[in-house]
């Protein structure tokens, strides 16, 4: 069922003859999906590095509206801090990198949000979400999902079909990242802006206060990192070179896929 993607469009639709190995030459991924994917990747790495640097300046997390070194944290990350103010217990202050980290964080956030908007609009208009990401009803059963998991745990390589269409687990996790984790990480990030909160106070009050928003921002970012690690691991297992080629060039020949 899940192999019936648009990627298997009739051959007549292909205008220019390309070096065809297996008879399928239509790009697996559109240019827009590939470009937005890699811009998002770059921005995510920049956000992760800069976000970690910002955490180093105060590696303590609180719940509620307020929190300082004088109040009890929800938890602490046991690392030295880049500010002498924080009693990290290390007697050592890390170099302060907050300036460029913050600038990079917000600039990457702008670029990834605009890129994401473009991708989401394209996804709805072009049918990319409907065709490639929304699971088929038949696959949406516990049995269907279990069989994908069992398949993965058996550490079998993906079959031909996998190279041309996403399985139900992939579809669900991509949809979760696109429509749940990314919106949440943007929301909790915006809630940390005092000026934005002045115009839209519900942004932060619905989350239980500024420090709750900061803590949630941290955990949602961690969830995105977990997704990234699993995503890269799966790409690796499926055949790193061919999947990378597919995401960069758009198509991967089946012959290469089997190497």
């Amino acid at each position, binding site marked *: 069922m899940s192999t019936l993607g648009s990627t298997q469009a009739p051959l007549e639709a292909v205008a220019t003859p390309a070096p065809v190995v297996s008879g399928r030459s239509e790009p697996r991924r559109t240019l827009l999906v590939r470009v937005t994917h890699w811009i998002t990747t770059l921005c995510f790495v920049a956000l992760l590095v800069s976000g970690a640097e*910002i*955490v180093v*300046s*105060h590696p*303590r997390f609180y719940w509620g*509206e*307020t*929190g*300082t*070194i*004088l*109040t009890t944290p929800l938890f602490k990350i046991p690392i030295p801090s880049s*500010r*002498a*103010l924080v009693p990290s217990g290390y007697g050592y202050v890390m170099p302060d990198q*907050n*300036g*460029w980290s*913050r*600038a*990079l964080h*917000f*600039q*990457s*956030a*702008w670029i990834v949000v605009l890129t994401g908007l473009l991708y989401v609009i394209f996804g709805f208009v072009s049918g990319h979400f409907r065709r490639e990401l929304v699971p088929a009803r038949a696959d949406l059963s516990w049995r269907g999902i279990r069989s994908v998991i069992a398949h993965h745990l058996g550490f079998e390589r993906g079959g031909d079909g996998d190279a041309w269409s996403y399985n139900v687990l992939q579809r669900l996790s991509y949809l979760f990242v696109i429509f749940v984790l990314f919106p949440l990480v943007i929301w909790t990030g915006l809630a*940390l*802006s*005092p*000026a*934005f*909160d*002045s*115009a839209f*106070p519900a942004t*932060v*009050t619905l989350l239980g206060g*500024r*420090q709750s928003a*900061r803590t949630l921002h941290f955990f949602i970012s961690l969830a995105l990192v977990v997704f990234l690690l699993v995503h890269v691991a799966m790409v690796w297992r499926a055949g790193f070179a061919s999947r990378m080629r597919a995401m960069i060039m758009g198509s991967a020949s089946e012959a290469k896929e089997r190497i």
Partner: protein
Amino acid sequence: MSNISRRKLITTGLAAAAGVSGLGVAAHLAQKYGLVPPDHSGLYGLGETLTYASQRLLTRHSMARQFSRSQISARPLANELAPFNDSFKRLQAGNFADWRLTVDGLVDRPAAFSVDQLRNYPSSNQITEVVCEEGWSYVAEWHGVPLSHVLGLVGTQPHAKYVVYFSIEPDWWESMDMADAMHPQTFLTYGMNGGDLPVGFGGPLRMRVPRQLGYKSVKFITHLTVTDNLKKFGKGLGSASPEGGYAWYAGI
């Protein structure tokens, strides 16, 4: 050249031309409506400009969140300060009676105010949060006179665009646009939680800009100057923060 590639070339060319001229128009309009921050150049200028422009379009008049008395932090945090300089110590020995706030620049009547004089103007209170760029925050009640009242007294000239404010401590200065300067919650603050403003929190006089991060709320204010051009100050980036790698506009 085939028809298809010619058509493609023409449409690409037109799209590029439209894009470039569109950017040009956008830059011109942004400049005209004061949406470009003084630290707009450099590697991160794009992000700073998008942030500042969006905030000016969305939040020009919005009010910082206010809290109830029960939400005031039991233990507010006075973060570390450099040792005070001699002028500060001398004024402190005199109980700040000789502390002066001088106001000059694009104003009709330059003036100097003592803290007691400022106290005699209609006072205002706000229970707002101090938000540090490091991540911590606390809520306190602040007492002061809105900066807009003092700017009204000295008479800012119509082409004024920014207020630059200086601490008695060297190299500690910031600036803000008129939207923030005239905002009713931007205070020349002399009191906190029902008492005088403690030295640790910036007493005797601190600027409070509650819609921006704590570093815009400069402590120990002695001098304000109204200007239409920030290029004349420091390295021309707007304030000391961008010189140290931090954003000039800190409402984020």
